[in-house]
């Protein structure tokens, strides 16, 4: 009997150890990949072999070659250079939108979860209402209203990300509120603001960071989708989704235009996803899938 049960335990531990290793690998792959993207975002213009806007009319739609690694687009611009320079735009939109959404989402969630009562009900009702508009549709409606541009795109993504964050933080705070150390802190007369910032926020931070990382991947997907639809960054500025949108009409004659920008988007989304999943397994094992 003893032998059987201990072998079962050993087997489960073996699996868990393997899983932990794989998840750790995810964390490192995600972080490394993201670091590479950040370097490209900073030095993109230096790294780019050509001006991303310069047109070489003799090379229209050229397939990949040693002069143009990823080929040339429909108006004679070097795809690689546009990808490298466009990295900053994509990354900036993603990081800005999750940062601003993070600040508002966390603030709403903290206030709503901690104070409860009427404040909570008003905030929750508004967030629930916004959650009933599919985020992509909400983003499209906002872009339609504020105009298609990088700024409009950032606003749209930000607004559509605040409700899920607020809901997440609220739930976490309501859980934490019942903990002994919170009532202890209250008993010794700690101010509400201090309690929120010094005790509740640090204990909710792991959940928030994980969610932000996963949302960053979503931001890249939504941003490039809107770019693809012509509702994001406007030409001639290079942006991955818009590059794919423009290459649509050349699908029959120059399908190679489609490959590199799509891989770039997928890799960046993968980096954020891997980072988020890896972080979740490390800091919040109960929640991992």
């Amino acid at each position, binding site marked *: 009997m003893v032998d059987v049960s201990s072998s079962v335990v050993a087997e489960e531990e073996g*699996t868990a150890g393997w899983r932990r290793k794989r998840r750790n690998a995810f964390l490192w792959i995600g972080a490394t990949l993201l670091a590479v993207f950040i370097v490209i975002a900073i030095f993109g213009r230096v790294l780019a072999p050509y001006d991303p806007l310069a047109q070489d009319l003799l090379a229209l739609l050229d397939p990949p070659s040693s002069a143009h690694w990823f080929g040339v687009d429909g108006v004679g611009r070097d795809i690689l250079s546009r990808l490298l320079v466009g990295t900053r735009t994509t990354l900036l939109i993603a990081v800005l939108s999750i940062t601003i959404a993070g600040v508002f989402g966390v603030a709403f969630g903290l206030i709503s979860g901690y104070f409860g009562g009427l404040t909570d009900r008003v905030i929750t009702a508004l967030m629930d209402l916004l959650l009933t508009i*599919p985020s*992509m549709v909400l983003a*499209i*409606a906002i872009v339609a209203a504020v105009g298609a541009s990088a700024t409009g795109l950032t606003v749209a993504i930000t607004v559509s990300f605040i409700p899920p964050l607020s809901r997440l933080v609220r739930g976490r705070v309501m859980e934490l509120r019942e903990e002994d150390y919170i009532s202890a802190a209250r008993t010794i007369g700690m101010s509400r603001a201090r309690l929120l910032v010094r005790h509740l926020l640090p204990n909710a931070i792991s959940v928030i960071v994980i969610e932000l990382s996963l949302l960053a*991947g979503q931001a890249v997907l939504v941003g*490039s989708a809107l770019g693809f639809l012509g509702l994001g960054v406007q030409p001639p500025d290079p942006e991955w989704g818009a590059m*794919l949108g423009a290459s649509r009409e050349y699908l029959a004659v120059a399908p190679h235009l489609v490959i590199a920008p*799509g891989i770039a988007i*997928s890799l960046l989304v993968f980096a954020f996803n891997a980072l988020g999943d890896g972080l979740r397994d490390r800091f919040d094992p109960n929640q991992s899938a």
Partner: protein
Amino acid sequence: MLRFFAYRLALIPLVAFGVITILFVIFKSVPGDEAAIVAGSAATQAEIEHIRVQLGLDKPLIEQYGRHLVGLLQGDFGYSPTFRGNPLPRILERVPATLLLMLSSILVTIIIGIPAGVTAAAYQNRWPDIAISSAVVALLAIPNFWLGMILIAVLSVQMGLLPSFGLAGPLSLVMPTIALSARLIALVARMTRGVVIEEMRKDYVRTARAKGLSRRVSLTRHVLRNAMIPTVTVIGLQAGYLLGGSVVVERLFAWPGIGDLLLAGINVRDYTLVQGITLLFVTGFLLINLAVEVLYVQINPRLRHG
């Protein structure tokens, strides 16, 4: 159960009212003269003023809002410059195409996602699992419109197998469905895998195995029944993706649905049309979530008296 259902159903108009208000605020804060947009760039100042009075845009905002609400109650979405009138009938005639795309995507998600997840769980940490889990990670990172473009390039342009645009016959459903359902398939497979692994460790499965039931039978007869729950969960959680993603996929494949019409409305700044379609999307979202909750209770009788 019935009371719960009725309560949720009654909530829909309330939410719709809130969403209508939010959309009204968003689109009234659009910079630029609404009457001038409706009149078009060739209109004279007199024509613009005429339209302003005709559409009631000279009235105070609160009155416009009231008229908007009353209009919506009567099925009047307002004046759409694209259709020179109430766009509702023209929106509704495009609903079936979008519904078709969504239903086929959900169907494909079930057909592929569940078996993939169960297979991965049954061969946990061996090569079928590693292959499926890797595919899941990849599918969650690939944008749906890129997947669609690759499909068009390979299956339509290179091989000439499938039509790349429009809705004409069942073949034209194939690529849009794959593009839209890829993400859902990945999520369902991942969640099913997790649930099946968890269930297989439980006592009732151990009992079944101890009684001499084969691994396969215990899996299909006992575990699989519980594996339906994550599928329903994913579809509920991803209802927003399904609706939003359909806009992108419809544009790529020139699919004659409401997503395509929404983008057409944005291009000509037809805000009546945009608001109307957004409202329809929200209604669809609420209905999907209601259906999900009903399904939950159907699958899991324990919730019936909750």
